[in-house]
């Protein structure tokens, strides 16, 4: 598969946008004054979000996790209401009710993050059911980590999607830790993709830090799903640069592990590759970074200006 220059720049831009948003969010959260609640960041897994979502149309759906900012940005959500949501403000995409772990941006097909590990998969199966029912030819991608592969939801959802031949792409980002427990402690096999065979579906394992590989492999999955052949599992090996949550001391990581993975930072690797290939020059790279920084700065400003919700917001919309 030949990836065009435009797509390469698009992949890079999606990743830089994700990374810039996540880095700035981290700083604001750590300052401790403006962003309430818990925060789970996805730096290091940026290529999985960008490479997957670059294959999706706006009417395709995604479900993501408590660590879902990257997926939602890569899918195309507007950063302003996203950031306002993280600030708990009324102009947030969920009116400041959901926050980082629970928010959705339905108009761009981001059907929900989830505070309960693994539960997005069941919802994704239902949205894929609706896509098939309405003969839309759309697909649903659901992001999860290897930790969620231990849930009943993973088994039930994959089996249900396979049995009903639903267009679900199960996108597993292996980031080595289920919260704080290493993969070797809770999974008996090396590659998650092996499990797909047990449901009669294809599964593939690849380098989740190479955004072009992610893009190409997910493209095959999307094609499979749009052809009505049922679900597909993609598994990218990647790494979570920060801990489970922001503030996690990460004392469970062996010395040197983070440093080794930082050498494989997907954003840095891809920038080097694009420079080497001449897809972008140094000025072009800087332009992408500046534009992403401008968008994130505007989003922060928008969030800061937005008021907090009135108390009455607790009591409206309980029923539709």
């Amino acid at each position, binding site marked *: 598969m030949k990836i065009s220059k435009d797509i390469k720049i698009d992949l890079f831009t999606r990743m830089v946008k994700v990374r810039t948003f996540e880095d700035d969010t981290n700083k604001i959260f750590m300052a401790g004054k403006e962003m309430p609640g818990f925060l789970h960041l996805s730096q290091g897994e940026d290529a999985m979000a960008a490479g997957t979502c670059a294959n999706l149309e706006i009417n395709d*759906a995604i479900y993501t996790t408590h660590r879902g900012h990257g997926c939602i940005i890569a899918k195309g959500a507007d950063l302003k209401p996203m950031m306002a949501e993280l600030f708990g403000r009324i102009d947030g995409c969920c009116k400041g*009710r959901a926050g980082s772990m629970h928010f959705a941006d339905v108009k761009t097909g981001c059907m929900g993050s989830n505070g309960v590990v693994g539960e997005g998969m069941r919802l994704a199966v239902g949205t894929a059911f609706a896509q098939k029912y309405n003969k839309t030819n759309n697909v649903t991608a659901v992001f999860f980590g290897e930790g969620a592969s231990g849930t009943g939801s993973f088994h039930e959802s994959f089996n249900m999607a396979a049995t009903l031949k639903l267009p679900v792409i199960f996108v597993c980002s292996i980031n080595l830790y289920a919260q704080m427990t290493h993969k070797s402690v809770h999974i008996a096999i090396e590659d998650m993709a092996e499990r797909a065979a047990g449901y009669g579906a294809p599964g593939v394992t690849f380098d989740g830090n190479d955004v072009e590989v992610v893009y190409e492999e997910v493209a095959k999955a999307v094609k499979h799903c749009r052809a009505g052949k049922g679900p597909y599992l993609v598994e990218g090996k990647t790494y979570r640069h920060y801990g489970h949550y922001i503030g996690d001391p990460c004392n469970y990581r062996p010395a040197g592990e983070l440093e080794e993975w930082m050498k494989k930072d997907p954003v840095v690797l891809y920038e080097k590759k694009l420079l080497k290939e001449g897809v972008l020059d140094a000025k072009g790279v800087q332009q992408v970074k500046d534009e992403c920084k401008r968008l994130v700065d505007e989003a922060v400003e928008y969030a800061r200006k937005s008021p907090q919700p009135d108390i009455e917001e607790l009591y409206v919309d309980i029923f539709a």
Partner: protein
Amino acid sequence: MGKPVMFQWAINHAIAEEMRRDPTVFIIGEDVGKPGGPFGVTRGLLDEFGPERAVDTPISEGTIVGMCAGAAAAGLRPVAEIMFMNFITLCVEELYNQASKMHWMFGAQVKLPMVVRAMTAGGYGAGPHHSSSLEGWFASMPGLKVVMPSTPVNAKGLMKAAIRDDNPVLYIEPLSSYKLKAEMPEGDFITPIGKCEIVKEGSDITIVTVGRMLQESLKAVDQLAKDGVKPELIDLLTVSPLDMDTIYTSVKKTHRLVIIHEAKETMGIGAEIAALVQEKAFDWLDAPVARVAAPFTHIAFQPKLEQHYMPDAGKLVAKVKTMLG
């Protein structure tokens, strides 16, 4: 009025009529398609609507309900069957953390029009895993409506209302009432969610009945009438949100209230109604609010023990008599 229809066919007819009216309505669950449901409630729907709209699934209760939420958020109107109500413990995550919260949590970006059917089977010796009434759990969940039909007519009306509602609705049907027959109103009708029904007007005491306890309450009312007691009988029909205004009005007339339900007394619907009545209508009460409900223990398969566990007409009559002194 039309010819008599059995409770289980009333549910069947309601679903079929709504499926004919609205192409986004579909049924899903274990055995709902080809087998027509474990007790025949969905019989014939596969033949009429095809496998796309009468969907047999693996035994995966949590995913059945979770996928209903995902399908409803994408614009469909699922009607799921969970079979025995005890199995709904496998779907509490999906009902509580997901379906009941999504409309509010996402700032009203999505609606969740979905119905989950569950069956209570008390009185059959079905034992600890097949006989429970758990409506109280779900009535404590904002964003989820809970209805409990008691007659063929309101079984049909509440099902149609539930399918048309834009919120998740838990529809709890009593196995022991499946064979009840009643004449059905002609044409399209609904039984509104969130409204009690005053089954019989009276002046001496208010009896609020939940679900299949209507049949026991009707027997009790007949027995009490022989002693000259005129109870006002209110069928709750919707467990959440509660129609308290009808109950307050009745209590202000009768000055006494007893609630009968099959679920346990502890933390039950009766406790909530009693608390609200003592808050809002205390000055009208001539006696403490009473409950006739299951004791705080497990339901037995053993017939003698199950019979002792279950509230019934005799227990209700005895309670009313002590309250009237």
